[in-house]
């Protein structure tokens, strides 16, 4: 009976959502540390969304697949290097580091190539035809599906058997929270890559070309900037960083090499880009770290099942009330 409605809702009220502020406070630093380590992956992937959006005003929906191809690239490099699945490798440290760098290179190249191919095969013909923006978005959705399914048919729907080069172990404590060797490596490496990308965009001639196209494509052309080359470059940079993110991801979560492993992560990285201000490289960086920690705070506060809801609510609220994000839209308009 409809008369039951208040009872149902009241019962639900007690049951399905509760605010555990004590837990939020207790685990604040714990969540911060973990959120930053995981958020660095969001940041790296978010850069790809942000750069392409800045230059083409296109949400490259297929960027999550650019990411996951990188993960497969790194995984097969591990295999090629002779690591066995389903255990922790016991190689000497130097060898491990060399192998990780090799895998990083392969992952970055794989992702970069996929991003570039997407640009050439799917998007460039549309630009030639001056297609409306939504046609680009639909193409991107199509490409995302096609790549995912191709991987699934090639491998299978199950995750690849995990390979872990470095066993996680706590290194030291901050605010009473232990930080593992993997978390520290990933965080620092991601930060270095992001800083390199940032100075490339802000300090080099090619980077200036990218920003010019983002701010005013026609005028950039009138200054002699080759727009097509700039677009290629942005896809490549985004791809390279996504590839790096993929390696860092499977270092933290070796079970993540699976055909649809990029999908949710991609949406969240996009959320991070929007949160920081889409089109803004430093915004992507900031947004990634923020989303990483917000997600964990939300989960502590509300319970594990609300984790993804927190991410989506952040996305919606930001888009509705401050669509330009924290640092403002566009590579240029933010005062970088």
């Amino acid at each position, binding site marked *: 009976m409809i008369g039951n409605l208040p009872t149902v809702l009241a019962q639900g009220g007690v049951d399905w959502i509760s605010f555990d502020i004590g837990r939020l406070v207790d685990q604040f630093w714990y969540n911060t540390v973990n959120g930053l380590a995981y958020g660095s992956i969001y940041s790296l992937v978010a850069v790809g969304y942000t750069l392409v959006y800045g230059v083409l005003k296109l949400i490259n929906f297929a960027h999550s697949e650019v990411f996951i191809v990188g993960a497969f690239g790194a995984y097969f490099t591990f295999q090629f290097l002779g690591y066995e699945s389903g255990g922790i490798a016991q190689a000497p440290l130097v060898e491990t580091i060399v192998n990780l760098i090799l895998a990083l290179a392969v992952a970055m190249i794989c992702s970069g190539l996929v991003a570039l191919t997407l640009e050439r095969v799917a998007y460039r013909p549309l630009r030639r035809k001056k297609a409306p923006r939504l046609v680009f978005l639909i193409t991107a959705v199509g490409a995302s599906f096609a790549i995912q399914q191709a991987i699934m048919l090639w491998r299978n729907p199950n995750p690849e058997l995990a390979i872990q080069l470095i066993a996680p172990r706590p290194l030291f404590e901050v605010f009473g929270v232990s930080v593992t060797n993997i978390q520290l490596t990933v965080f620092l490496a991601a930060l270095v890559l992001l800083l390199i990308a940032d100075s490339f965009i802000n300090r080099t001639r090619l980077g200036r070309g990218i*920003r*010019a196209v983002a701010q005013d494509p*026609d*005028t950039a052309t*009138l*200054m002699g900037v080759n727009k097509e080359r700039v677009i290629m470059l942005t896809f490549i940079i985004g791809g390279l960083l996504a590839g790096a993110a993929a390696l860092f991801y499977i270092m933290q979560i070796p079970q993540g090499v699976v055909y649809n492993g990029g999908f949710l992560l991609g949406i969240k990285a996009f959320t991070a880009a929007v949160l920081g201000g889409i089109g803004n490289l430093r915004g992507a960086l900031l947004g990634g770290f923020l989303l990483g920690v917000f997600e964990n705070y939300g989960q502590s506060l509300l319970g594990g099942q609300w984790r993804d809801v927190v991410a989506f609510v952040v996305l919606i609220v930001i888009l509705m009330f401050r669509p330009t994000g924290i640092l403002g839209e566009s590579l240029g308009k933010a005062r970088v």
Partner: protein
Amino acid sequence: MTLLEISDVSVHYGRIRALSGLSLTVEEGEVVTLIGANGAGKTTTMRTVSGLLPVTSGSITFEGDDITRLRADLRVVRGICQSPEGRAIFPGMTVQENLDMGCYTRKDRAAIAEDYERVFSLFPRLEERRTQVGGTMSGGEQQMLALGRALMARPRLLLLDEPSMGLAPQFIQQIFRIITEINEQGTTVLLVEQNAQQALSRAHRAYILDAGEITRTGTGAELLADPSIKDAYLGVG
């Protein structure tokens, strides 16, 4: 010699014809101005010369070479530089970076340094504000920056689209003085202007554009004296 020759060029936006069989020439060292009402096709002409718009028929030659199908960014390398309508500086870049964009295609470092000197001597204001972000400057300053940026390309042919638009009268005077100065230093200028009075008085030659076609041509002085031109384009004030 003839620097730029546009012969019988037609341009379409979708199904609408914006230029029909337009022909004009610009000789080396000249200031040539293009006068016309709103929607006559002035900006279209400029964008066509720069390569932003493809031609449907006709040809464009620059220094005797056919550049009709040449990519826009490569035309900049050839020495055609446009300062587009509405200033169009990069709002998120500093003054310095905007000027750097001007010499984006150049590799001759020594000459670039010279050109910085030249731009800063023409616009001392820009030197003071090197680190200011473009979007935060006043309209006049932005126009100076746009001009300065165009000069940094050290163009053979400078295309100026409405450089006086929206400016206070004292700035307008200054802008036109600088255009003359640039021309005297050896840069050929093709100028599109609403302010026909000023433009005609500074130009060696002028073309009148109406509905995508050239209707009159002559020296600046000739057209300035023509009563019918006066009625149509010089207005009352």
